[in-house]
């Protein structure tokens, strides 16, 4: 499955970024082979003045992401992610990308079903 994780670094040993719309990068990989397939892309929503969560969520759909792992989603981002039928899971910022993928595979990550605070990532 194609996974996307919000992150601050371009390495599987870097940490999950708990901001969704305002994270610097997204890591995309196939869940069966993260090492072999991981690619990192700049978050296209980062520079915008507003609606970053919406733009990032739309980007997930464009990238045909099947599973999203991030910190939390604001109300607007969640609406887009749900419309795109992309299951989203919450991971802690203390997890590396490798650990987050492993935790998701083992069913330890909670599914995001409620929106977090709006504008939480603007810091």
């Amino acid at each position, binding site marked *: 499955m194609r996974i996307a994780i919000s992150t601050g670094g371009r390495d599987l040993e870097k940490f999950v970024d708990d901001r969704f719309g305002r994270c610097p990068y997204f890591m995309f990989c196939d869940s069966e082979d993260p090492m072999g397939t991981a690619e990192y892309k700049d978050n296209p929503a980062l520079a915008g003045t*507003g609606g970053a969560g*919406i733009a990032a*969520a*739309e980007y997930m*759909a464009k990238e045909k992401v099947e599973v999203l792992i991030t910190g939390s989603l604001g109300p*607007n981002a969640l609406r887009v992610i749900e419309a795109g*039928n992309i299951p989203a899971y919450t991971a802690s910022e203390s997890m590396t990308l490798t650990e987050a993928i492993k935790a998701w595979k083992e069913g330890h990550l909670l599914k995001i079903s409620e929106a977090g605070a709006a504008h939480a990532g603007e810091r």
Partner: protein
Amino acid sequence: MRLAVLSGKGGTGKTTVAVNLALSWAPYRITTYVDYDVEEPNGFIFLRPQIQSSSTVFLPYPKINGACTLCGKCSEACQYHALAVVGGQVLVFPELCHGCGTCGIVCPVDAVDEVKRSLGQIDVGERDGVQCLQGVLKEGESLAGPVIRELRHLEKKHISQVEEVIVADCPPGSSCSVIHSAEDSDLALLVTEPTLFGLHDLKIAVRLMREMGLDFGVIQNKDDGGTLIREYCTQEGITLLGSIPFDLEIARIYSRGQSLMNEPKWADLFKTLGERIVTEVNLRKTRGERA
């Protein structure tokens, strides 16, 4: 004659100055007071005008019709991300939409209809010969711009006489809202207070006035007799138009939501200040004509 009352820092006394100036001019000149601080308009608390009419300010936003092919051009073009094309549908976020209409222009199949939502309102009233206008942004809304624009439009329609005085009570800060409220004025009155915060934000407001090329002067409120503001004005060659003392009685009257006009001492102070402002505007006009 259009006067913009602004401050940089909030709470320095913009509304006190604007309301009392308007009331003191009203017996001699056709006077209009306009509250442009649409996020928290408070001039009407002191003016208590008889409201004659209210109108709603609308903002258009897109509604996608059945012709849509999900091409995504609207979402790509929207810099506010008010549209998202996902999961076989177009999601619209009206609260992010600035009403620019770009989505409709770029749509190749005419699938964007325009609907509108209410953003705020404008009230028009009268009190003691002062025409009173105010814009009110709806709670929870963040776009003050369209309400200010509409109010500005109404202000222009309202005035006919050249001798008329318009007192524009502007928002605090130095953002777009301030610029749109203050531009095209004959003189900006920068209301400040003798505190370090007051001076700091006054400097920002002065920079804005110079950037905009707007004539301005300073009014010192809560004057404690100190030299902080006076020295700055002298150094910068800025006209200090007047001073309102730091006085408990003024604070008391203000806290009751009353104007200062009932107290002869303060009525005189504002009359003098008003005359000074008129002189200043005329002086600058003659200077400008000569140049």
